[in-house]
């Protein structure tokens, strides 16, 4: 018995945090979720799996596109044509209502809003009972696990659940606890919803397959699906990468010797050293920027250096298989050019100024845009802006000193 567990295809969700990519790279990125899905289908057919579990969020209702749907239908049809069963449960992004249903190919097994069980007989004559449910609304606040049946009279019992572990506070995504899952004595819990592949429990495996393709910097590392095979009466799982684009961070140290050109060379050398198996979208993080010359620091903070580097990597990225989409400067560690006598005042003022409220207040009208509001309200943003401000202060104050010195002369 062999099957594939995947989730969160999010076929129609765009990539976040990218701008001004070269055209071919843009197309590659744009196609990545589709290619990843194709990879999964191809693997399923060559591996001759018995069935494929898709645990929710194949689409996003908010941005559902025809192209994505027809694409998925074609791919699922290929699986069915190869004699591979496809079992789908919908999640919070592709929840199904009575009036608006997805047209998946005939033969695909789709769970309804109640927990039900499907029994499949595999090629090696083993009976597999699969229980699951679909979201009928954006949220499911109740724990669904109690509705799952006890281990039935089958060789293997699998649970499909799109949701999140119960937390204190609001729980909108079919909250569950590991202990109640373990108590069902299933052979495998196929989870969806969390985009990072994650093993919550070893025996029986309670597994997040993760999204098949990371879509922003917060989804770094390899993504793919779980390939599960029976051995004796146990299920062995194996993560298989299917992603076409991978997000990662490259951290480099800079110092007094660093120049515009040497930094470009340093970055390119490090990129070459990455040898990524999958095309990498790289966030370049620079440490030690306080040691940089004022000029370079200014060009880094105002984006001039990045513009120059972009031209370089335009030429090379197909070769290095990497693209630096963002350069972040680690907040200056050393003294900014304010007197130690005033250090306390600077610190005090920083705490008072760099608050989320102040950011929102300053942003003013910009908060009308939901995506900007989301971004600006994130604590990460406050930290990032604080770091940036420090860097800029460093650059600006040093520039000031230099200008002053020059002026005096």
């Amino acid at each position, binding site marked *: 018995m062999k099957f594939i567990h995947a989730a969160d295809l999010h076929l129609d969700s*765009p990539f976040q945090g990218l701008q001004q990519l070269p055209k071919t790279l843009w197309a590659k990125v744009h196609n990545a979720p589709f290619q990843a899905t194709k990879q999964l289908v191809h693997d399923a057919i060559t591996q001759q799996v018995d069935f494929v579990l898709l645990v929710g969020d194949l689409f996003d209702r908010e941005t559902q596109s025809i192209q994505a749907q027809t694409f998925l239908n074609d791919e699922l049809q290929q699986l069915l044509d190869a004699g591979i069963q496809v079992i789908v449960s919908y999640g919070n992004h592709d929840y199904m209502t009575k009036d608006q249903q997805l047209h998946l190919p005939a033969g695909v097994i789709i769970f309804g809003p109640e927990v039900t069980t499907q029994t499949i007989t595999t090629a090696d004559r083993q009976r597999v009972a699969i229980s699951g449910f679909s979201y009928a609304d954006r949220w499911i606040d109740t724990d669904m696990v109690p509705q799952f049946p006890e281990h039935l009279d089958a060789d293997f019992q699998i649970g499909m659940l799109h949701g999140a572990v119960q937390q204190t506070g609001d729980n909108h995504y079919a909250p569950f606890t590991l202990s109640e899952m373990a108590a069902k004595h299933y052979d495998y819990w196929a989870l969806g919803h969390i985009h990072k592949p994650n093993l919550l429990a070893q025996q029986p495996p309670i597994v997040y397959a993760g999204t098949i393709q990371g879509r922003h910097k917060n989804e770094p590392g390899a993504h793919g699906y779980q390939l599960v095979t029976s051995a004796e009466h146990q299920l062995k799982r194996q993560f298989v990468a299917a992603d076409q684009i991978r997000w990662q961070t490259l951290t480099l140290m800079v110092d007094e010797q660093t120049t515009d050109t040497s930094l470009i060379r340093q970055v390119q050398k490090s990129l070459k050293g990455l040898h990524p198996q999958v095309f990498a979208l790289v966030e370049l993080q620079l440490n030690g920027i306080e040691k940089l010359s004022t000029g370079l620091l200014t060009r880094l903070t105002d984006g001039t250096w990045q513009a120059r580097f972009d031209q370089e990597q335009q030429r090379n990225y197909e070769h290095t298989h990497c693209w630096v989409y963002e350069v972040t400067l680690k907040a200056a560690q050393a003294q900014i050019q304010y007197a130690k006598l005033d250090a306390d005042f600077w610190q005090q003022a920083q705490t008072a100024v760099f608050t989320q409220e102040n950011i929102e207040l300053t942003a003013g009208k910009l908060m009308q845009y939901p995506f900007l509001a989301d971004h600006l309200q994130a604590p990460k943003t406050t930290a990032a802006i604080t770091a940036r401000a420090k860097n800029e202060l460093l650059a600006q104050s040093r520039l000031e000193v230099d200008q002053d010195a020059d002026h005096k002369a």
Partner: protein
Amino acid sequence: MRITKLKIYGFGQFNDTVLDLADDFQVIYGENEAGKSTLVAFITSLLFGFATGKHRYEMYQPKRGSQYGGEVSFTHAGTHYWLKRVAGTHGGEVTFRNIDTNAGLGKADLEALLQPMNRELFQQIFCFGERQLQAVFNLNRFDLVQRIQRVGAIGSESWIGLTKTLTSEAGELYKPRGRVQPLVRLLHEYDSINEKVASVKGQFQQYQSLQSEAQKTRLELNQIQRELNQLNQQINQYQRLLPIYERYQALNSDPKQAANEAVISADDWREVTQLSIAIKQAQSELSALQQRIKQQTADQEVTADQQFYRDHRERIDKLATQLAPMTELQQQQTRRQAQMNSGQQELAELSKQYGSSLPQAAVLNDSESQSLQVLFDQQQHLIIEREARAKQRQEHQATFQALTDKANSDAPSGIDLKWLIGGVAVIIIALFGLSGILRTVGGVVGLFVAGYGIFKQTIFGGNQSDTDSQLALLSSQLDQDRNQLTKLDQQLVEIESQITQFGTAHQLTGFDTADWLAIQPDLRTYQTLQKQVAAQQDQLTQDTRTLRTYLVQWQFAGDVIGLGGSDDYQLQLIGQFLSERRDESQRLSWAGETLKANAERQSMLQKQLRDQQSQLQQRLSQYQVATVEAFESRYQAEQTLTKQSEQRNALNAQLTSADRQLLRKTASKDDLVASEKVAQVKLNQFKQQQGTLLEQASRQNYQLERLATSDRYQKLLQQRADLQSEIISLTDEWLTKQLLIKWIDQTLMTASQGRQPQIIATAETFFKTLTGERYDQIIFTDQTVQVERTDGLKFDVGELSSGTAEQLYVALRFAFTKVMADAVAMPIIIDDAFVNFDRDRTKRALSMLQKLASSSQVLYFTANRDNLSLVASDQVYHLEAGKSE
């Protein structure tokens, strides 16, 4: 810290210069270019290190090549120090000493002593230049208030400058009411892409409902297709059954085979047919055979000759054996006769050629011929020799005659005719053939030649005595010749007699002597021929006898054969007779054999015929028929029935049970035709419906396809996401600047407020001094700064005259420095800061500085001579222009 002494080795324009400074208030006067700024730089450089190469103009390398650097002596916290700094790494080589304890200290000790001060901080807090204050004095009221409010922070002037830069930079990125800033533009773009997304998003609904419709159409089409299939099947059945309807009905009503009669099997039928044919053939062969036997019996008669042969067979056969040799003999005889005739003819010819003496002439053998030849040769030889002698003698005679004549003439003519004639000839040729000088020359040459001919003999001369001796010799030779000839003639006569003697001995005298040897072959031939002819004659006679004897033995059959004529002819007749007999015997023998074979065949055929007839009869009686014809007709009838039955079965096999049911049920062909028509009409109706549905389905599919193949929506989503990223990054940049401005401002405010009580306390005394006791209080509020006049009236900074506001700033600024100096005691250095103050104000400022000097050393650099009268002369140090150069 109070600096007491400066010793400059070399720094800028200064070389080996020593300055002793007052430890409280020191005015240093120098005209422009006297080196005031250089001194300030020297002090900061000595304390905090030389400027690096990066700021070359601040290094003040000595112009004259003295050692770079110098010494400074100062007191700090009651202790005396001495500091020396010369060129070296990291800001110069430092020698640092505690004078009181005479302890050597290091660079680190100096830094620890100066903590937390550094060059920048020192310059920001303790150094005042004209520029710093001037900038403030040029500010507008609002900015001045801002400066005043923020005076309590270190470096607030430059920080405020930075916020201005940042504000303008932020303004270039985004303004809430702006139009052209990049962030504003991106947001507009975002709004428009959002609208597009919303409009394209609606397509999904359309796609879904289209999908449902298409699904419905597909179901309907399937239904119609099923109906159509059924109808088609029906029509097909009707069409299939129509042509066979009549045949089916006919076949199914045909009579059946009589069950009781035995059916003639195919094998039996074949046997009967073959038998009857065989019988017919046998009968016809028999009758032909009988005819032939009759003919052959007649052909058995024998001829009379054959009968005679049979009667005398032994005798004839015996003679016949000899016929071949006899015939051979006869032919040989003919050839021999011919040879003999030709021999006789040849003999007759030879006789005719040589005449009658031929038969007698003897044939010479080899030795005889040889002897004869020797005789002939000798004779010939002698004849030739004699002729030669005779000729020689004639010659001798002629010579003798000539010599005699010559001797007789004595004077011989001596003219050589050859030369004479040649010369004449030359003259003639010259006269007629040539002309001119050649003619003359030719004539002369001719004359010479002719002359030579005439006088030659005279020139060479002759000898008379020679001639006489020659004559004598010739005469003896002539005699000798005559004797010889005589001797030869005798020998010839002797030989001739010997030859004649030989001819007589061999009877050759009848022939010419010369032919004797030549006739020898013919003579030999003649004798041989004579012998041959005689031998042949004998043989011929003997053979003729043998032949005659053989022919006589045939005389008993002479009449039968018709013998007569030459031997040759008779032999031929006998041969012909014998050949005829052989042929006839052969023919008779063959005829006998054929007749016998035919008789055997006849009896065999007769038996076979009987067998076949009985066999046939048996078969016929088996089926109770009398004749073959009856049998045949019965068989054919049976066959027809079988075929019909088969056809019926075949037809039935083609038909399904439904077909058969329909055929049975349908009363007539017309009914069937009518049913088909009804089905056809229905079919057309369905087809029309199907067409409409297909059209609908293709339209729906086309629309679905069109919607599905457009990736515009996804692209828009990604574009929107990208745009969001861009907006976010720009927003972050803008916000960073905005917050940075706030941060700096907040820091300045906080710092100022933190130091407020001390600053205000000090500033109030300074302000009082500066304003000539007109104001005595400064009040900071959250919003603004107020001052209180001695009469108790309060003024907002904004309400003050600009001069007063400036004084307020100066008071606060120096108060700040004093506050800072209280924490970190450093000398206060003022470089013509009050250059724009009028004399009154400058005086008050200086008195403020005097106050300040009580807590910190004040070094006041000025180029304004007027200022010198405002301070005690011992407080002034004059920088001499000449000294510095």
